[in-house]
């Protein structure tokens, strides 16, 4: 068996294989549902109903999609330059911590000033957190996959330390949680009384901005060149290491926005469980979107829908909600296979 490059694939093929990847995901999920002793079609019906079947469901899905758009963008940007940032989880918490530090009364300013300060501060924190692994990679040749992964564990322990120490809420009855951010630091709700907040709008704007950077800007061009072939990029005069560092800063900053959005938009304070692995799920979101920043919005909503729908389904049908994690992981693997198949054909002999 060997792989041969295909000539430029048609639009139909480019969409067909990813569609088949999604289909394969559902087939595998159906098998698992049957193993769990439920009827797949009924379960999928419940998932869809739970994800988009009502205004409540839809709002919930978009709310859940918001952090995923940010982490998905962070990964899409990094992976384009083949900077394997698996540390979006830690960068998210870095953004969240910064939101608490700046937003719990340290700065007294109206919302119009305080929120931008928080955003800039949080992005800086996230960027700096990824700067370390990026420099270790470019200076010492240390694989960033392992360092970013290990940093996730280190930073989560650091957050735990903060929440039991300097950032602990004195009124928190001993729970490891922070004080709530002041009203001026809160991202307002889009619809009064619903959980969906302006973090979602910020996410959409971020996606458009990232798309502009990737498709139109010099930096985006440099990042793609470095990702595809660093040696050729270096030969052509592209400063590979500097581009990787810039990529790291952008990626870390974007992931940190997920933390801002969750703390200032949704939860109001920081606990150790504000992210159920959004940093890791961002990898799937980015890959499902074929690393396209605008596609990230769609795939984030899709993935969020599966999570929200599966939660709802799980309560009524008794199939463990972990089915959503399985589906997301399966989607990732079948999608990377599908991308390969759009670009190469397999010759068996």
């Amino acid at each position: 068996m060997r792989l041969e490059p295909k000539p430029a694939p048609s639009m139909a093929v480019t969409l067909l294989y990813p569609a088949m990847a999604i289909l394969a995901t559902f087939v595998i999920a159906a098998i698992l549902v049957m193993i769990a002793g439920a009827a797949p079609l009924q379960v999928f019906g419940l998932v869809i109903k739970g994800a988009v079947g009502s205004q409540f469901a839809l709002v919930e899905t978009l709310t859940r999609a918001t952090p995923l758009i940010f982490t998905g963008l962070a990964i899409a940007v990094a992976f384009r330059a083949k900077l394997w940032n698996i540390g979006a989880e830690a960068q998210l918490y870095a953004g969240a911590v910064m939101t608490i530090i700046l937003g719990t009364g340290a700065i007294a300013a109206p919302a119009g000033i305080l929120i931008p300060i928080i955003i800039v501060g949080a992005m800086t924190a996230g960027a700096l957190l990824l700067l370390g692994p990026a420099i270790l990679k470019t200076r010492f040749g240390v694989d960033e996959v392992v360092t970013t992964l290990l940093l996730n564990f280190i930073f989560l322990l650091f957050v735990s330390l903060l929440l039991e120490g300097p950032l602990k809420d004195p009124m928190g009855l001993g729970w490891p949680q922070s004080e709530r951010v002041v009203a001026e630091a809160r991202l307002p709700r889009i619809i009064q009384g619903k959980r969906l907040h302006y973090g979602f709008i910020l996410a959409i704007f971020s996606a458009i901005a990232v798309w502009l950077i990737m498709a139109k800007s010099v930096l985006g061009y440099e990042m793609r060149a470095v990702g595809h072939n660093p040696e050729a990029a270096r030969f052509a005069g592209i400063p590979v290491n500097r581009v990787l560092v810039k990529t790291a800063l952008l990626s870390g900053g974007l992931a940190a926005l997920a933390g801002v959005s969750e703390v200032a938009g949704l939860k109001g304070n920081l606990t150790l469980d504000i992210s159920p692995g959004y940093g890791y799920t961002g990898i799937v979101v980015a890959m499902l979107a074929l690393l396209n920043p605008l596609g990230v919005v769609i795939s984030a909503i899709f993935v969020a829908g599966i999570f929200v729908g599966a939660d709802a389904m799980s309560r009524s049908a008794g199939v463990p909600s972990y089915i959503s994690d399985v589906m997301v992981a399966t989607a990732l693997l079948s999608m990377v296979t599908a991308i390969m198949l759009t670009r190469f054909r397999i010759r068996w002999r």
Partner: protein
Amino acid sequence: MLLDAFDILLTTGFWVAAIRIASPLIFATMGELICERAGVLNLGIEGIMTVGAFTGWFTVYAGGDLWTGVMVAALCGAMFGLLHGFLTVPLGLSQHVTGIGITLLATSLTYFTYRVALSESTSPPKIEPFQPYPVPGLSEIPFLGETLFMQTPLTYLAFITVGLVAWVLYRTPLGLAVRAAGENPVAVEAQGISVTAIRVGAVMVGSALMAIGGAFLTMSAFNSFFFEMINGRGWICIALVVFGSWRPGKALLGAILFAAFDAYQVRLQQVTGGVIPYQIFLMLPYILSIVALIVVARRASYPKALMVPYQKGER
């Protein structure tokens, strides 16, 4: 207090614990080492250890005996290895992305299965784990006997595995082929050996060892399965392979050093009595891994074809 901190090193209890903590790391590090020696980075390690931890334990819980549990864990690990191997070797997909995908899939599938199989139980059920088995004669050696030869059979197996891996890699024709596949796959294909078979095979065997490493946690170190019990051990093993310069002996040494450090920080926590936040101690193993990577990265002689996909007839 300083004296106390030093005294820890002289207690047998400390070294017994260090060897126990090292055991799962030894299995998984050997597994990753085999994969990388053949040229494939296996980031599925964290998930595959989770699978091993669950399936081994569950087999015993469902009535199988302990060694059957180990076999089942190895087999399940090998199946995920097959998937990783198939996607990364003949299909040539990114080893980074695929590995992360395998970890996500293996972990979530394990949790799903756990919930389906044990939906009714709230606290995790316990099994009767491997018991320490004093090796006749050897266990009576003062200090050394107590630390090394009063362990469970799985720990002995871990040490045997290191010898076996080293033997196969350096003393057999198969090991030669595996190492060559990681250095220059073209050389292997030119001598009539299938690179695909060697690499996929190595990933399967390696993954089986990772799964046994996971199973050690539920069947020897503890006696039940918890969510997130692997807790980054897989990633640490990847660092240990680099630290050991891809050599079984050095990697073993690295795993023991690391485990000793881990055991030490737990005891140091008790000695320091809460003056330093416990999180600092918990962070140390991860920080140590990163430091180890930085120290050796410059002079590491990694397998030349690591992470380089190979296509037949391409030269």
